[in-house]
Every structure is written in C-alpha cells, then in structure tokens.
C-alpha cells in the first residue's frame, strides 16, 4: 500500500464519519433532552431507507432529495409517536428502564411491520451515480459517498446553528443540562420534548435515506447502525454534539483501517467490541475525559 491508498482510506473514513455523525445525532439529542435511550431509532432509520426507496422507485424522486424530504415527514411522525406513547412513560434526570423497554417494543413493532410490508429480501437504491467515482488527483472517491456526505454535514451544521442562535436551541441546551431548572425558568418542557423527539426521528429518517444509498438494506437494517450510534454517543459523551462528531470520526477510522488487519467477516464485531470497551472505560465518553481533567483542578 502506498501513500495514495492510505489517503484514500482516510478520505473514506472521513466521509463515513460524516454520515455516521448524522445518523447518531438524532439519538444524542433525544437522550440529552429527555434521557431516553431511543432503541426505536433503528426502526426509523430503516423506515427512512424504505421511504426514500419508494419515492425513488415509484415517483422517480432522486434519493438525495428524498432524504431531505424525509426529514419533515419523520419529524411529524416522531411528534406523533411522542404524543401517543412516549409522553406516557415517566421521565427523570436518569434514563429509565421503562423508557428503554418501551422504545424496544416500538422497534420490534416497526421492524416487523417492515417485514410484513416489504418482505425480508435485501433491497438497494441503484442510481447511475452508484457505480461511478470522482478522481481528485491520486484520490478516488465513490461519487455516492461524497454526495451523501454533503447533506449529512450540512444538516449537522444547521443543527449547530439552531442550537446556538435560536430560542429553541438555547432551550434544548438548557434542558440537556438540567431539566428541573429548565422547567422553573418557564421552558415548556413537554412541548419541547415532543418537538425534540420529532427532530431526533427526523434525523433518523433522513439519515436512513442517506445510508440506503450506500448499503443494501432489509427491515433488519437498523440494528447494526443502532449499535454504531451507541458507540458514537458513548465514545463522544452522551450529551455533547462535538463529542458525538469526534466519536463518529473514531469509529469510522477504526472500522475503515481494520480491514487492513482483520478478515472482513469480523468487521461488525468491531463496533460491538468498541461499544463495550467504550462503555466500560469511558462512562462519560471522550468529552467526559476532557471534563474530568478540569474537574480536579
């Protein structure tokens, strides 16, 4: 392997990191504001993939556009789910088992609805773009990866803008730090929770659509990505967006370069092992380690 190959791998990892970050940010925001570990995130990733697939195959809508359209659709769906189910479960400042099991039940329902509707064969989104590559000098990038990366990063940038500049964003950050205090300062917590859950699901749907252009998928699609999302969140610290971005980068790099040392079949185990290692060694994530350094000053 020469330098160009290494650079290709790094670029590959970077592009992957972008999409991984977009995929996991939905879980981060739901966890941060509501302390709910949203296992159903996987189900919505899967539904997002099929949503974009159907739009493409029936209405000939470009998958990239489809992914963008998925966001508002899934935002509304998420708010509906919150209104129907999630708000009935007690929430606290610590994640509860009840919410975990509830979201797990929802995921089971979504996944198996998927099987019922679409069967269990693998599907893919094939466009003329799928097999082409772009060359930047010695670097070769599959076109799809680059094109998927752009909306992913844009959405993250947009989210960051919203969090910093808007009232909603400030409220979200306040609630992430202290729910009760937020309530006391007049933040309408339940409405915020509903909107935030919707945003999280919106990201899930859109990310699912983007991922569907990179990988083939079946109704079981979400599971591998669910675990990857956990790794990212745990690596990055469960309540920090930049931490989640860092976590996505770490995971993407490890996964991409692991091909050099491990047989391909073991690759899925990497995310899982990394998850366990991360949970055990860094309960606060990478961001938590940095926070620790400040703590005992």
């Amino acid at each position, binding site marked *: 392997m020469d330098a160009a190959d290494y650079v290709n791998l790094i670029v590959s990892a970077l592009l992957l990191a972008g999409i991984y970050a977009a995929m996991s940010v939905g879980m981060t925001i739901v966890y941060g504001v509501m302390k709910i570990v949203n296992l159903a995130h996987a189900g919505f990733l899967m539904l997002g993939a099929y949503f974009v697939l159907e739009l493409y195959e029936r209405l000939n809508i470009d998958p990239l556009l489809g992914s963008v359209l998925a966001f508002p659709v899934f935002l509304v769906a998420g708010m509906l789910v919150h209104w129907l189910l999630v708000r009935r479960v007690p929430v606290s400042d610590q994640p509860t088992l009840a919410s975990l099991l509830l979201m797990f039940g929802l995921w089971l329902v979504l996944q198996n609805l998927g099987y019922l509707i679409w069967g269990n064969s693998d599907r893919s989104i094939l466009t003329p773009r799928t097999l082409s590559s772009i060359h930047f000098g010695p670097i070769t990038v599959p076109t799809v990866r680059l094109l998927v990366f752009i909306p992913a990063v844009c959405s993250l940038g947009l989210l960051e803008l919203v969090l910093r500049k808007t009232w909603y964003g400030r409220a979200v950050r306040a609630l992430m730090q202290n729910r009760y205090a937020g309530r006391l300062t007049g933040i309408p917590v339940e409405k915020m929770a509903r909107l935030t859950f919707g945003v999280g699901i919106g990201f899930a749907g859109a990310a699912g659509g983007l991922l569907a252009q990179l990988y083939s998928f079946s109704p079981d699609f979400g599971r591998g990505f669910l675990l990857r999302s956990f790794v990212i969140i745990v690596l990055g610290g469960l309540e920090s967006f930049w931490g989640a971005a860092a976590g996505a980068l770490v995971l993407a790099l490890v996964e991409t370069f692991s091909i050099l040392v491990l047989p391909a079949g073991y690759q899925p185990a990497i995310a899982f092992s990394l998850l366990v290692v991360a949970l055990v060694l860094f309960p606060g994530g990478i961001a938590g380690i940095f926070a620790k350094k*400040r*703590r*005992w*000053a």
Partner: protein
Amino acid sequence: MPSLLLVDRLNKYFAGLAALKDVSFEVEEGQICGLIGPNGAGKTTLFSIIAGSVSPSSGLITYSGKDVTRWKSFQAVRAGVARTHQVTRPFRSMTTRQNVEVALHFGRSNARGSDARQVAEILEDVGLGHMADKPAASLCVGDQKRLELARTLAAKPKLLLCDEVCSGLTETEMNGVLELLRRIRERGVTILYVEHNMRAIMSTCDQVVVLNFGQKLTEGPPLKIQNDPAVIEAYLGRTAAA
C-alpha cells in the same frame, strides 16, 4: 479514652469546588458527638465519606486505628459503622420487617436461626412492632426514620452515623427518637449525629463539631458552642453576634 473515629485533614472537591477543606476531628468511644453547621456546610458530604458512600479527594480517616479512608459502604457496615439517610430510603417493594431482615442478614451479625426473634426485638425497640408487616412505602415520615434506625441497629454497629433523624418530626416523635438514641448509647454504641435542631443537639451530645463552608469552625461541649460568637455569626450573621 482512645478515639474510635479519627478524621484527619479531609478534603473533598466536586468539579473544582471545595465541599470539605482540611477537616479534622476525633470521636471518642461511647460519646454522642454532634455535627452542626448551616446548610451547605458539608455535613452530609462528610457523613457520606466516613460511611463509605463517597471517596474523599485527600485526607485520612481511621476507625479503631485502621485506615478506612477509601472503604466502600458495605465494608463499613461489616466493620460496625452504619448510617441513616437524611432523606429516607426505605426499600418500598418490601415490608417493614423485610427491610430489617435484609439489614440483619447482611450486616455484621450475619445471624442465623434466631433471625425472626432478633428482627422482632429490633422492631419493638424502635417502636415499629405494630407496623412490621405493612409495606415500607406506607410508613409516615417519622416511622420511616425509625426504620432507618432499625436497619442500622440490625447491623449491630459500634459507630452509628445519624443524619438528621429529627427533621420532619413532631415534638413528641422527636423526644421518642432522642430517647432511643440515648438508649442506644447506653449499650455502648458511639454516635456521630448531624442535626439542625439545636434542642436535640444540646440535650443529647457530649461534644459538638461545627462546620461552616466546608471547614471546621470549632468544637467543644454543647454549652460552649452555644455561646461561641463565631458559631452564632455563622448561623445568624454578624449583627446577631454583636
């Protein structure tokens, strides 16, 4: 008399904030030692560290001469140091009796055979005999405090850490609890007692340690503390002391 508990230059920082700074004092065997101070002085933090629920940033704690600075709370219980909680934490899914049963079985005594009799005795002692089979969740605050004491007694402690056992109680209830504490001391149990209620402190304690802003302000017999201008100032402000 040799000191049962020695606290030496104890420090505790939370995220850069000093909850306890250089706290040192001794508790002699057989004493009832009071620990007082305004809200936020660090009393419960100190308690939690001695009891093993929290570890200190630096400093030394010895119990019967042994270094126990970083022990865990279940180790403390096995060694004879038991604590009550300021905000009661009964096991709500169990009955009153079962709460004491667990404590008896896993505390220092590791009793066998005569369990039921011992549990009944302990419940009678604290005045909960009639509530033995009611769910712990149904107890009123005063009875929950008694349950906390019952659980500690089940562990046959040598050093009992009481955290505000009188808060939230009526006058009568409080007298009953103080009487109970005195009875416990008569059995040879040393008591370290955090309390806000001055009457309780003055009437039961042999010596008092005063904390303020995480540091030891002073210590001494109750009467001396009561009249110490620095203590009055800590609680009431400068003009009151003048």
